[in-house]
């Protein structure tokens, strides 16, 4: 409840006070919860805790506004008779909460803010994650994250970014950036190097929640948004199946299909279908279609040919080295490992862990010595214990 209510209150407060008075907004939100933390253990949790929190937040906001008005009127007495003295109450209605959050999304995903900072800000402001949770997700420490967030907020202030929806003519261009941030947010949770499963899963669902908000608003309910949501639902279906109770990674082929969430897959298919209109093909469309095939575990020629075809399309519209390596994996399923190795040679990609893992896989049973050597290269780049264990398992399977 803390996280949900924090992000609602803070979004409304931000919008009310603007980025110039960011500290005020955050102080009020934090104070509200601090008050609850002091009060509830003594007096018991109130019958309607959310209403209680909102009432406290409203009062604190009012006090803050009075204080700032007093300050204003002292240093500039001519303003005293101004309408500025009028103090309106902050509006914590569901409509205003959702409007504020949507507007905050566009403000945070402003092109002037560096992408990495956007993800951090989104986690903090839009999702209500604590600094320690964010640090955990990024495998970083609290100080670094706090500094990074501070700089990002400075940027919001300096650029005088207003908290509002872009105009109808700008919405498409700005929406691209919002989608990218949601996409990266989901990635952060799904492929996080941190082994904190709870936080990682929460991040994935937060990305889904933010994307759903965009779909619920007619202005932003565009095909690309539906495609991104489909993509995330397809992948989220395996969240329960891909780690064991100790947080160790379970590989795709070893996962218990019964743990794949059928609601999630069905939702993915629904949104993918809704995304299939208009004249623009986004990379999310293609990735979502690939993700659909991943929800069908049975290996069939049809499946891998479809996936390979989709990767070819994806590389045409949005090339990335990793997509190219993924394409080779699909290629090996349609053709042979030897042919796939030849494909990799044509790529000239910078060898990273992903590359070494792929090569280890492709050389398995073609040349186990080579395979082991590639896995050892991958091992050197492993940053976490579960990752190391996974690679060692691969090496052991070669024997």
């Amino acid at each position: 409840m803390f996280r949900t209510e924090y992000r609602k209150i803070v979004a409304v407060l931000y919008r009310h006070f603007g980025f110039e008075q960011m500290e005020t907004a955050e102080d009020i939100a934090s104070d509200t919860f601090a008050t609850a933390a002091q009060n509830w253990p003594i007096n018991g949790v109130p019958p309607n805790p959310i209403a209680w929190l909102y009432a406290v937040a409203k009062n604190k906001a009012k006090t803050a506004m009075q204080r700032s008005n007093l300050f204003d009127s002292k240093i500039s007495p001519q303003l005293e008779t101004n309408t500025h003295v009028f103090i309106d109450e902050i509006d914590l209605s569901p409509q205003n909460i959702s409007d504020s959050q949507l507007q905050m999304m566009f403000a945070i995903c402003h092109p002037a803010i560096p992408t990495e900072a956007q993800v951090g800000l989104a986690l903090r402001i839009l999702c209500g994650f604590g600094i320690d949770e964010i640090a955990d997700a990024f495998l970083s420490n609290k100080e670094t994250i706090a500094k990074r967030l501070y700089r990002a907020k400075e940027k919001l202030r300096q650029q005088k970014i207003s908290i509002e929806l872009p105009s109808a003519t700008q919405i498409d261009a700005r929406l691209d950036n919002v989608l990218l941030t949601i996409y990266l947010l989901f990635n952060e949770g799904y492929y996080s190097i941190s082994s904190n499963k709870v936080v990682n899963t929460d991040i994935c669902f937060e990305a889904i929640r933010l994307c759903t908000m965009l779909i619920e608003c007619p202005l932003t309910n565009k095909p690309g948004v539906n495609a991104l949501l489909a993509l995330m639902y397809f992948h989220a279906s395996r969240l329960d199946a891909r780690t064991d109770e100790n947080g160790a990674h379970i590989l795709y082929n070893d996962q218990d299909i019964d743990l794949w969430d059928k609601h999630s897959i069905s939702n993915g298919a629904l949104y993918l279908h809704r995304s299939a209109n208009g004249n623009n093909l986004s990379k999310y469309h293609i990735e979502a279609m690939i993700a659909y095939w991943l929800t069908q575990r049975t290996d069939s020629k049809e499946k891998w040919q479809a996936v390979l075809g989709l990767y070819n399309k994806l590389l045409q519209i949005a090339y990335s080295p990793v997509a190219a390596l993924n394409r080779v994996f699909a290629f090996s399923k349609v053709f042979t490992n030897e042919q796939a190795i030849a494909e990799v040679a044509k790529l000239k990609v910078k060898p990273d862990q992903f590359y070494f893992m792929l090569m280890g896989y492709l050389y398995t049973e073609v040349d186990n010595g080579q395979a082991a050597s590639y896995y050892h290269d991958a091992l050197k780049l492993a940053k976490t214990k579960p990752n190391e264990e996974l690679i060692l398992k691969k090496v052991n399977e070669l024997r």
Partner: protein
Amino acid sequence: MLIFRHQDGGKIASPEQMQIWMQQTMDWLNGLKATGNFEGKGDGLIFDDAKVVHHDKTVTNGPFGEIKETLGGYVVVKAKNADEAAECAKGCPVLQGEGNTVEVRRLAKGDGVHA
């Protein structure tokens, strides 16, 4: 554990239903290409998405699953500048097809339009 549900989440589409949807989606995709609505036709590059290989942008491998989930591991790729991105693009298999090109563009930042 899936706490996040869509309003339609109570209903689960049957595999047959999903197959029909997929088929319709593929038809849409293929129809796009046939009518030439594929943006940036000649080289098959959609300009809106060119930001994927982008100055100072964090580029991740996207939630593709595939190798990541099959072989494990993770990766974050960063292109320091457009040149490095172009270097990467040289390996694009698309280039193997005659007449195909790969375009790498650095987008204008902070003009309020480009990401």
